[in-house]
């Protein structure tokens, strides 16, 4: 009896060991996109190249923190998605591996080398337009006009009806802050933000929360990246997406290889895959409506196309730097946040 148990345990152990020897290789992906999009991308890559993918999903801020904490002993191989600024910071701080993918020739000009360091630390893997969405049912109920610009949001009739994330915890909100600053100049921007502050019902922690709140009717207007809101609209919620008329900013999704990656070859393969037409069309299949940066890829009709809207020339280099981020976020925390509403 005992001998049988020992034998079967040994066989089991051997089996476990050999099972893992079957995969072609592995890859550890740190993903900062929505969970379902991350899973779809991981599955697609894993299936196509027979690579065992281990994927962690966390916000771009958390992921940057993790990569920084692990810098002497990196556990991740590649960082996919998440707004570009933390990628830029990671590049400047020497945490990323430069890589010029052969796929870059298919990528739009301004997405090839967008990060601050300009050393091909990161590539742009998607773009998303900043804007806000309005719950049309609630709008009708309250008999209010549809806002069309940034300036409209400061009108007194929208008091308490707007949600925006807090720049202290959300990259989305920081991009909003930086956009307003680039539209109006820094001091005027803070005058605007003070006025907007009076209409804010709540500053949320997560960047995609305002859109979801607007969809559910918990707030009238949610400011954020419109691809998140497009998903809600496709799911049947009564939302209207608004691109502010004065011009608006956009985010670039980053794609970077971590310095010292243990699976460097697979990491480069992943970057090539995600920059290709095939890779960029994967998120669309799961209703992730970010705009692909590959010029040959299909742009989903629900996505807001970059060439159809009035975009500002968002300066990723300046506004992605650590000093500028700290300066603006601290100023916001000091001047705007404590103000009464």
């Amino acid at each position, binding site marked *: 009896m005992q001998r049988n148990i020992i034998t079967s345990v040994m066989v089991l152990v051997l089996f476990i060991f050999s099972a893992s020897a079957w995969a072609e290789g592995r890859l550890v992906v740190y993903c900062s996109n929505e969970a379902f999009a991350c899973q779809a991308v991981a599955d697609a890559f894993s299936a196509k190249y027979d690579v065992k993918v281990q994927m962690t999903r966390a916000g771009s801020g958390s992921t940057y923190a993790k990569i920084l904490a692990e810098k002497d002993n990196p556990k991740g191989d590649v960082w996919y998605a998440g707004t570009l600024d933390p990628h830029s910071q990671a590049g400047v701080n020497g945490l990323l591996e430069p890589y010029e993918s052969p796929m870059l020739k298919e990528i739009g000009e301004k997405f090839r080398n967008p990060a601050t360091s300009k050393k091909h630390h990161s590539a742009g893997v998607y773009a998303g337009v900043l804007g806000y969405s309005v719950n049309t049912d609630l709008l009708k109920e309250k008999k209010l006009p549809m806002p069309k610009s940034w300036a409209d949001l400061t009108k007194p009739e929208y008091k308490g009806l707007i949600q925006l994330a807090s720049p*202290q915890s959300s990259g989305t909100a920081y991009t909003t802050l930086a956009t307003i600053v680039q539209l109006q100049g820094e001091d005027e921007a803070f005058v605007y933000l003070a006025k907007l502050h009076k209409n804010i019902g709540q500053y949320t922690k997560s960047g995609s929360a305002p859109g979801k709140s607007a969809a559910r009717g*918990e707030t009238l207007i949610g400011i954020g990246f419109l691809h998140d809101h497009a998903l809600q609209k496709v799911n049947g*919620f009564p939302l209207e997406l608004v691109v502010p008329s004065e011009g608006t900013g956009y985010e670039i999704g980053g794609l970077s290889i971590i310095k010292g990656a243990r699976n460097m070859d697979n990491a480069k393969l992943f970057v090539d895959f995600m920059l290709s037409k095939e890779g960029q069309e994967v998120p669309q299949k799961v209703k992730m409506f970010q705009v692909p940066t590959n010029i040959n890829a299909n742009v989903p009709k629900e996505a807001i196309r970059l060439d159809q809207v009035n975009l500002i020339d968002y300066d990723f280099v300046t506004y992605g730097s650590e000093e500028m981020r700290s300066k603006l976020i601290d100023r916001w925390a000091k001047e705007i946040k404590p103000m009464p509403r």
Partner: protein
Amino acid sequence: MFTSNTHHALVKTAPGETRPLTILIWIIAGFGAYWFLPWFALEYGLFDATIEEYLASLGWKTRPLTLTVPVFLALFIPFAWPWLPLKRLGWVYTLFASAGIGLIFLDFIRTGEAMGFSAAVVVMALAAIFAIGIAKIGFQRGDSFISGAVVFVIFMVLVFIFYPVIKIFNQVLISRDGSFAPFQFFRILTSFGVSRVVFNTLVLAISVGAATTLFGLIFALYAVRATTRLRYAVRILYILPIITPPFVVGMSLILLFGRAGMVNDVLMFLFGPTGIFTAAGSEGIFERSGYIYGFTGIFLAQTLSLTPISYMLLSGMISTINPSMEEASLTMRASRWLTLRNVTLPLIRPGIANAFLLGMISSAADFGNPLVLGGEYDVLSTEIYFSIAGAQLDFGKASTLGLILLFLSLAVFMIQKRWVGQTSYVTVTGIQTAGNVTPLPKRMQQLFTVFISVWLVLVGVLYFSIFLGGFVKQWGADYSLTIAHHRELWMHGFASGGWPSLKNSLGYSFIAAPFTTMMGVLIAYIVTRKQFWGRGVIDFGTVLIFAIPGTVIGVAYILAFNTPPVELTGTAIILIITMAIRAMPVGIRGGMSALSQISPSLEEASLLQRAGSAKTIRSVLMPILRPTIVSSMAYSFIRSMTTVSAVIFLATAGTNVATTYILSRVESGDTGVAVAYGSVLIFTMLCFTFLVQALTGRSRVEKQVKTQ
């Protein structure tokens, strides 16, 4: 020379003394580990590694220098037979073993590699030999089991408590760009917003402490003294909030009172602009708003979650008051109210103080509720989290705030120990002494009945909404019933959805529970029964274990265990250890209170008859301690399943646990799925509690928490 010492090997060994065989076993274990287990840490863990990776990590294959290890171990073999005088032998063991451990650590630090399983086993073997050595020198009167226990406990406390806390201190002194900044602590302390956060935390802690004490008192008096049937409901239902992950209560409050909450819907229906009670044309007296977010919400959630604990503390005290005092008062014609106020309450004053302080610490350390309900009311625990996971990473700020929270917690704990320390370990088994229990004053009982009924209804509605919420398509917008959430979680195969995290939670808690209990009872034993050098270390270590808030442990462990030589982040081991440490206070306190009831003469009798310490503990103490051990394991399991603040930083994709999974879904706004999962967790814990109760005949959780 023919001294009695050289005949040592021929003389039967004294009780507690190590047989040569024991030492040989340790040497063989070290040997075997070296040859078969990986010396260097495997990148992907034991079960995920390929054959090549495994072979590459064996010491003798890749690093010839490590062959010195088996040679070194072999040197001990001749010393296993005690042919040297006893004391000299002890010194040999001690010095060589400590040299060995030191060299291994130094080598790993020098090369920057991480220690693997075999390195750990070899270090353990050397530590055992070290312990045997100091026992022979005379530590603990030659009792090597106890000295081994002491060495083990000190080692665990040093590595898993002191080392991480020191790392936090270290981090405070290093600024964002890596340079030494000794005054950074003060700069951050006086920087904008920090004082507000500290103030917020204190205000919340004090109010929650006061509220839970008051309500806990009401419940306790009612449950013990009331004459209505309702008191049985209290005695059964109090357990619900304890087995619920803390922030699930917060989420259910949002479901009910949030902007899109059910209660708001009802109020809008009745009193809103188009409500049925509103006069035509007027605006109505009710408008949707986020009143639940912020102080109100957190206060409510924490009070609901923490009152049961203060209830258990106080009901234990009340049921052990000698009724004759109150009887005397009543026979002297004092009214029931006067008796209550002047006799009963003063008698339980230490318990009230204890409950208040406990409520304060729990509130300050709570992370889940402020995260979910905080809105813009920032408290220390959430600020620490966002210093790491927010928009701008700042380890210096996280560490500074963590230290503030730790000091706060330690201060309260010290007050508790000094002021009410005596009553912490009193037996509270609910033994009724002779005499009639004085019922409550009539008016008071009526008032309490109303209050408690409202409370129970509220709790009932909350839990109902949690279970219902899992089946509702989109709470607040679309109330159609659906099993889509549960399907997403449970029906896509065992490798996706909620299964991996649930399996991990169950597995880790299951492994952590016996470990916690063993360590807790061991610590309790050596602290209550033994005097030794190094006791201060353990004492202070246990104080830290009791006082340290979860987020602080999380940050400390990231800082301490993310780099070699002890690299544990990303593994299951660190989660198990974190859970064990979080639940250990209960094991220690339970062990201490149980041991203080047992007379030492029992052990002395056993030792007199030449049974060693190990056998004494095994055959004499364990059977008596069995109820304590069972309750401690049960409570540790529950605590580990519902912990969130410590593990939020440590859980990764491969080691995700239920609570962090739920939290990540909440953060993404998928409330339906989050609540569905939460309800399944609660259901699991309920089943577990009933199982334990059925097997042991009583709700063991109750006994453990009372002694907290």
